[in-house]
C-alpha cells in the first residue's frame, strides 16, 4: 500500500486499528458504533462551521460584517450559540401534547443522521453499503414529515398546525420531482447502490452524469427540490418567521429549537451529498491526474461548494409565495422530470451522440412551453389583482 493509498484510506485504517483492540465477538458492533460516531461527529461539526459560514456570507452579501465578536474573526460564534441554546429555558405550552412535543425534534434528528449511512464519503468509506441505498435514502428522508406533523400538532397552537400543514404539503410536492430526477441515474447505471453509482462515473469529469443532457436537467431539478426539501430560501415558507410566524417551530425554544435547526442543516448537507453521489461523481476526482488527493477530500470539497451555493441563493433570492411554490413543483418540475426519464432511456438505448440534439430540442421546447404556461397563470402587466387583501 503506497502512502497515497494510505492517506486515502486513513479513516478506514483508523477504524480497523481501533476495532482490533476488542474481542472478536464485539468487533462488528464496535465497527458500527465507530462509523455512527464518526458520522455524528464530522457532520455535527460541519453543521457548526456552516452556520458560521452562512452568517458571515449573508453578512457580506448584505453589506455588514456578520458575527465578529466571539474569538478571532467570530470563529467561536457556533460554540457560543450552542451554549446559549443549552442554557435557555425550555418552554412547553401548558396544553401541548407533552409526549409529541418532546419526541418531534428527536424524530427529526434521527432520520437526518441516518441518511448519511448510505452516502459514500470516499473510496470504501461508507457506513452501510446496501443494494438499495438510493431508495433507503429517500425512504428515511420521507419519514421526516411525520416529525413535522408531531411538532405542529403537539404544540397545540393553530399557527403551528397551519405551518406544519404548509410544510408537509411543500415536502411531499417536491419529493416527487426529486425522486424522479434520481430515477434517471438509476436507469442509466441500472443500480440502486450508491457505491456502484459512484463507480460508474469513474475516469474524469466528462464521465459524470451531470455532463449528459438528462443529467444536467436532472441535477438542476434535484437541486431546486433539495432547496425546497431542506426548507431553504427561496422555499423557506415552513419557517418564514417574518411573515408566517415560524410555522411548526413557533412553540419551540432552547435546545429543542436547536435540534430543529441542526436537522435543517444536516438535511441540506445530506441532500447535497446525494446530489454529488448521483450526478457529480461522488468522491471521484474531476481529472485522473488529481487522484493523489484523497477521495474524501473531493467529497467534502464538493459538499462545501454546495453549501456555499445554498448560502449564496439564500442571500440572493426573495421568498416565493405559497401558490408559486406549488405551481413550480407540479406544473413545471414534475413534467420536466418525467420527460427527462424518457430522454435518459433514449440515451441508454442509443448510447451515442444522437441523443444530444434530440434531448436539447425536446427539453428546450418543454422548458420554454411550461415556463410560458406558468407565466400565463397570472395577469401580465396591468394592475395587480388582490383577491383576499381588499
Amino acid at each position: 500500500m503506497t502512502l497515497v493509498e494510505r492517506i486515502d484510506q486513513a479513516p478506514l485504517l483508523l477504524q480497523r486499528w481501533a476495532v482490533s483492540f476488542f474481542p472478536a465477538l464485539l468487533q462488528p458492533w464496535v465497527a458500527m458504533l465507530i462509523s455512527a460516531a464518526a458520522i455524528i461527529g464530522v457532520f455535527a461539526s460541519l453543521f457548526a462551521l456552516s452556520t458560521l459560514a452562512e452568517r458571515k456570507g449573508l453578512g457580506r452579501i448584505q453589506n455588514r460584517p456578520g458575527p465578529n465578536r466571539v474569538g478571532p474573526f467570530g470563529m467561536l460564534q457556533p460554540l457560543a450559540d450552542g451554549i446559549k441554546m443549552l442554557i435557555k429555558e425550555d418552554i412547553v405550552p401548558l396544553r401541548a401534547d407533552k409526549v409529541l412535543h418532546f419526541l418531534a425534534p428527536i424524530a427529526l434528528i434521527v432520520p437526518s443522521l441516518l441518511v448519511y449511512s448510505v452516502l459514500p464519503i470516499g473510496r470504501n468509506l461508507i457506513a452501510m453499503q446496501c443494494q438499495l441505498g438510493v431508495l433507503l435514502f429517500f425512504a428515511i428522508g420521507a419519514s421526516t414529515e411525520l416529525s413535522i406533523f408531531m411538532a405542529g400538532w403537539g404544540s397545540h397552537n393553530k399557527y403551528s398546525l397551519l405551518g406544519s400543514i404548509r410544510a408537509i404539503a411543500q415536502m411531499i410536492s417536491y419529493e416527487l420531482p426529486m425522486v424522479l430526477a434520481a430515477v434517471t441515474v438509476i436507469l442509466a447505471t441500472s443500480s440502486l447502490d450508491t457505491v456502484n453509482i459512484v463507480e460508474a462515473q469513474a475516469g474524469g469529469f466528462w464521465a459524470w452524469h451531470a455532463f449528459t443532457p438528462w443529467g444536467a436537467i436532472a441535477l438542476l431539478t434535484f437541486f431546486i427540490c433539495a432547496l425546497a426539501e431542506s426548507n431553504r430560501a427561496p422555499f423557506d415558507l415552513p419557517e418564514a418567521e417574518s411573515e408566517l410566524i415560524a410555522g411548526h417551530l413557533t412553540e419551540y425554544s432552547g435546545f429543542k429549537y436547536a435540534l430543529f435547526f441542526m436537522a435543517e442543516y444536516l438535511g441540506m448537507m445530506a441532500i447535497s451529498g446525494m446530489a454529488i453521489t448521483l450526478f457529480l461523481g461522488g468522491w471521484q476526482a474531476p481529472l485522473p491526474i488529481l487522484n493523489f488527493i484523497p477521495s474524501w477530500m473531493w467529497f467534502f470539497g464538493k459538499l462545501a461548494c454546495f453549501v456555499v451555493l445554498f448560502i449564496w441563493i439564500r442571500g440572493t433570492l426573495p421568498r416565493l409565495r405559497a401558490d408559486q411554490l406549488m405551481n413550480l413543483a407540479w406544473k413545471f418540475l414534475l413534467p420536466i422530470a418525467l420527460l427527462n426519464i424518457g430522454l435518459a432511456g433514449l440515451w441508454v438505448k442509443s448510447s451515442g451522440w444522437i441523443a444530444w440534439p434530440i434531448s436539447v430540442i425536446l427539453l428546450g421546447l418543454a422548458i420554454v412551453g411550461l415556463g410560458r404556461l406558468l407565466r400565463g397563470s397570472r395577469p401580465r402587466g396591468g394592475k395587480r389583482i388582490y383577491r383576499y387583501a381588499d
Partner: protein
Amino acid sequence: MPSFIFYLFALVTLGFGLLVVTARNPVTSALSLASSFVGLAALFISLDAYFIGIIQILVYAGAVMVLFLFIIMLMDIKAEEGKKTNNGALVGGCLLAVLLVLQVIMVSGAFHGERTVGDLDTAAAIGKAAGTELPTIANDLREGSLPDTKLMGYALFDRYGFHLQVVGLLLLVGTVGVVMLSKRDTAAKEAGN
C-alpha cells in the same frame, strides 16, 4: 442475536398495532400505526427482503401516513371520550383475525413439502459435486444476495405488465374523478354566489 432482534421488532409491531386499535386519540393511533409499519419493515429487512422493507417505509410510513395525518389536521378530529365500543365491529374483527390465522396455518401447511433454503444448500453441494450449477436465483439465495428489486421488476413489468397498466388506468380514473368532483363543488359555489 438475530432471534433477539426478531422478537424486539415483533414486539414493536404488535404492541403499536394494539395501540392503534385501543388508543382514544386519533393522533396516537396514526403515529402508532406508523411505528408499527416501521417495525414490520425491520422484520422484512431481517428476512433479507430489503426492497419490500424499504418500500414499506417509503409508501406506508411515508405516503399513506401523511395522507392520514392530513385528514386529521384538516378535519380537526378530536379524541373520542366516553364512547361505547361497537360490539358488532369487535366480534367481526375477532372473527376476521381467527380467519386470518386459519389461512396462515393452511398456507404454511401447504408449503410443507416445498424446498427450503437449507434444502437448496444441500442441492447446491450435490450439484457442485456433479459439475452442474443451480439456477441463478438459488445461487443468489445461497450467497445471500438475492437481487429482489430486479426479480420484482421483472415480475411486475414483464409477466404482469398488462395487469399493472390496468391498475394504473384505474388509479388515473380515480384521480380524474376526484378532480372533477372538487371542481364541480367550486363551480356550484361560485354559481351560488
